[in-house]
């Protein structure tokens, strides 16, 4: 009796640990970031390429001319991207594959690509994007906790019910 009790206890602890481990893994692989790509000059790089194309998972997510910014939502701790750099208009293109670790504590990350290509250190070309709450975000909203609020809509994707 005691033995079987011990056994169930061990099973339970094991199950608990496994679930905690899964949760930890989810924290690591599931962290979402918004990555912004800049093609801008900085202290390190005075002259920027004419055009940079960024591909993630084989999909083109940004095509940046001088002083332009693109963005992509990604998941995980690393971002592997393909860059197609055109130094001068009509000139040859250089293709390269870059893997960039993403800092966990930043939601929005700005990558200065010219600086990155120059081989500058991490903290010189990675900076945090701090979003400014938009007007509508900052406006106080009235919370509707009406009991009868959900009576009419069920599984309707933002279909206007007011005729």
């Amino acid at each position, binding site marked *: 009796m005691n033995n079987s009790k011990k056994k169930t206890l061990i099973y339970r602890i094991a199950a608990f640990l496994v679930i905690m481990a899964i949760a930890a893994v989810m924290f690591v692989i599931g962290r979402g970031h918004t990555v912004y790509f800049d093609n801008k000059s900085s202290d390190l790089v005075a002259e920027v390429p004419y055009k940079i194309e960024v591909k993630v998972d084989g999909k083109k997510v940004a095509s940046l001319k001088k002083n332009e910014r693109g963005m992509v939502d990604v998941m995980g701790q690393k971002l592997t991207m393909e860059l197609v750099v055109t130094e001068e208009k009509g000139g040859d293109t250089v293709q390269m594959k870059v893997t960039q670790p993403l800092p966990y504590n930043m939601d929005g990350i700005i990558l200065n690509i010219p600086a990155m290509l120059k081989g500058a250190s991490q903290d010189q070309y990675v900076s945090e994007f701090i979003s400014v709450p938009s007007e509508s975000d900052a406006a106080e909203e009235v919370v509707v*906790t009406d*009991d*009868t609020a959900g*009576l*009419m809509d069920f599984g309707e994707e933002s279909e206007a019910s007011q005729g």
Partner: protein
Amino acid sequence: MTEKTNTITLGDRVKDIAKDFGLPRLIITGFLVLLLVVSPFVGADLPTQISNIINRFSWNGILVLAMVPMVHSGCGLNFGLPLGIISGLLGATLSIELGFTGAFSFLMAILLATPFALVFGCIYGWLLNKIKGGEMMIATYVGFSSVSLMCMMWLLLPYHSPNMVWGMAGKGLRTTISLEGYYTQALAKILQINIGNLSIPTGSILFFALLAFGMWAFLHTKTGTAMTAVGSNPEFARSSGVNVDKIRLISVVMSTWLAAIGILVYEQGFGFIQLYMAPFYMALPAVSAILIGGASVNKASVMNVIIGTILFQGIVTMTPTVMNNMIHLDMSEVIRIIVSNGMILYALTRKTEETK
């Protein structure tokens, strides 16, 4: 010696009262007293608060009173209150549609609501007699079904009064209809007392008192005592020659009719008729009010109604002002939900007399 026994009996009595009263009720009463004591210190005007409570009491009292007959006859808490409310709404809208105005429209609304309440009550009572033992759940859903059926009806029924229908379409009733020019404050204005910030709607209270006294008197008639007998021991009642089904039917009809009158009184205080989804959850505050007043699933008195309505409405009106003034945080809605439903839950989990 005598002193000692005295204190013991006193202590026992206090304990007995507390036990009778129930812990949640004690907490709620304490909470309300606390609110009343605190309110002057946080800058809320006490007379205004008190007249608010009295006003709200006069609006809601009859809806709570409607619970009494069905609890007495053993049908449990009338979660099907919306059915009666709909009868009242039909009476109200018909009275306006037929062109009655002023305080007279209130009288006509009552008269017009009565046949609906009787018919609906009879059907409802007949249904509840078929399903003895499962009344409360089915009552809830009878209420819901009737409200949602009427939602369609408000749109489809041939109402034409320009004060009630949508201006653009010229048909279909509006969600809220103002009673300005009809029976707003029809009862409250009678013998109204105004002392500074304190105002008492004497007429409404007298009307409630009349119905409450009627209820009390009815419960002491032959039919009334038979009703109590049916509720407390149906087998015994049947063997002593009482027609159980008939008594239950009467109680349901009474409850439905009182709900119809109750909503009309509520409207005359509130000043608007609310249609469509509005009656949906109106049963819950009434149910929890009577339970707070000391009633249980199978025991209720007129006194429970009065105490319960005052306590419930007191908390509903006091918490927002006091909380806002004190911590600038209006948690009253959440408190209302937790208190009222917690009270119903508490009552449902008490062992009833039969199962004891």
